């Protein structure tokens, strides 16, 4: 399958999980290395926002998993789709101790997500699909 649904990367960093956790889950951390400014309400269902000043781009995220200091997951919109498109990808960071450092894995899934009736919708494209798509998004977020 040439369509990538899942992206996975692992890096080892020479810092303990607690340090990496702070960089991933605090506004100060995220604003320092990921975006230029960040806010985060660190609890499942909490909102987070990141701003890239140079690009003039803001990402709205929803925190999904918070298991300090091992799992941090959030969903965010798919870049390039309209802001109100219900499709979102899920990003999950997993931290494992590795010696005195941390093995950090990031997995982003959902690039190829479409509802089950994707074929009909992609070809009929009528607006009645919206209510269903939004319901599916809610179910997806609840299940995440």
């Amino acid at each position, binding site marked *: *399958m*040439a*369509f*990538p*649904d899942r*992206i996975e*990367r692992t*890096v080892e*960093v*020479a*810092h303990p999980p607690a*340090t*990496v956790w702070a*960089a*991933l889950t605090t506004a100060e*951390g995220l604003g*320092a*290395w*990921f975006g230029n400014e960040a806010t985060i309400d660190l609890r499942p269902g909490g909102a987070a926002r990141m701003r890239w000043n140079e690009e003039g781009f803001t990402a709205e995220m929803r925190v999904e998993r918070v298991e300090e200091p091992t799992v941090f997951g959030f969903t965010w919109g*798919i*870049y*390039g*789709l*309209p802001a109100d*498109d219900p*499709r979102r*990808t899920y990003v999950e960071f997993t931290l494992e101790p590795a010696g005195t450092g941390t093995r*950090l894995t*990031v997995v*982003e899934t959902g*690039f*190829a*997500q*479409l509802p*089950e009736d*994707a*074929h009909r*919708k*992609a*070809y009929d*494209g009528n607006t009645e699909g919206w209510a269903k798509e939004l319901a599916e998004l809610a179910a997806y977020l609840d299940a995440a």
Partner: protein
Amino acid sequence: MPHDIEAIAEQVFAALADPTRRAILAALASGGPATATDLAGRLPITRQAIAKHLALLAEAGLVQAEAGERRRVRYRVRSAPMQVAQQFLAALARDWDSTLDALTDHLDRGA
């Protein structure tokens, strides 16, 4: 994952590979639904060539024919297949390598 997704993305990229079809889609996207005759007045392409490309685009699901005034067929852009192709591009453009490099640099600076 349905196989259709890849087929849809492929049709979008094939449609966009042709400059005339790009021009037609751009005209419909910027100016709204139009007939082949309308488009021929706005683009340096014959009405016959436009009709041929519109038929191909409709077959690929990228434009939709609808009844216009005086029973003339109008075409409108259908964004759903574009959004599928956009998801493909978004996956390719997601640059976790640079992002993780930035994280590593940040951690090393703070140490």
